[in-house]
């Protein structure tokens, strides 16, 4: 199919293309967070840590519980990001400025939520790494 790539896009269309691009980046980011969450789920519940560590299981349980919250948060954000795509496309149908402003503000709010999630999740991962990294059991005889 021959596509006319030299078509001129309006300022609004260009802006919408940028918003959609940002939306796709969030989607990709969240999909990767989901993979990381799945791995950490497996890691935290595996029998791989030294045995006689004070409060080890309590700490692991706390991490595990927190991870479930991240899992839910990630799922919620993924749905919101997915639905927001339709809002962005809907901007073209806005008949007044206040409608456009509304959707732009929604975009900024969602951006802040994604960034905030990324920040919190990074903090959580660092805590898991620094606590569990030194407690891995090296051999089957190690307790």
């Amino acid at each position, binding site marked *: 199919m021959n596509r006319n790539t030299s078509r001129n896009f309006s300022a609004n269309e260009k802006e919408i293309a940028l918003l959609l691009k940002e939306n796709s980046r969030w989607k990709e980011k969240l999909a990767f967070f989901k993979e990381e969450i799945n791995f950490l789920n497996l890691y935290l519940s*595996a029998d791989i840590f030294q045995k006689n560590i004070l409060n080890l299981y309590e700490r692991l349980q706390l991490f595990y519980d927190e991870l479930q919250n991240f899992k839910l948060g990630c799922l919620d954000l993924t749905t919101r990001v997915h639905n927001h795509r339709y809002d962005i496309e809907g901007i073209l149908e806005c008949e007044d400025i206040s409608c456009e402003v509304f959707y732009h503000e929604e975009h900024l709010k969602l951006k802040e939520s994604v960034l905030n999630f990324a920040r919190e999740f990074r903090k959580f991962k660092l805590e898991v790494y620094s606590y569990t*990294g030194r407690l891995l059991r090296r051999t089957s005889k190690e307790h």
Partner: protein
Amino acid sequence: MENKAHNYRYIEWKTPDEMHFSSLQWKSELNFIKDEHRFFEDMLKEYTLPIIESQLFSRVKELIEQLDLSRKDLKLLEKRVADHIKKLRELLENTNEQREGHVYRQEHKEILNDVTHYSRQYKRLKRDIFQTVGRALKQQKQKRLLA
């Protein structure tokens, strides 16, 4: 894999303050990766039992080598980002000079391109580590249940 250079035209409008801010974000991202490297390396090198049992040893060896290369690349990138930050800071502090920053825009573009490329490659490596260690953990769990 080839590092496809992007044009990043929007950088033409970035002020030195904005470039400085972005560079600090890169620094923070690279610092995090450094910590993560250490964790993955410990996990792959020290946590040997399920890996040997699951016969994934050669695959893990490859991953350790890749992690090592990734760490070397990170070191170089960190140095470039740190130098760039230093130059931008000097530019921001020097009130006598015009704060155009066009001299550093090309450098900013190049580093942005390399940071993006590095992050993509690192994500692929992480995915491979998750898959391999995940498999070992699952096999270990199954063995325990059957024992």
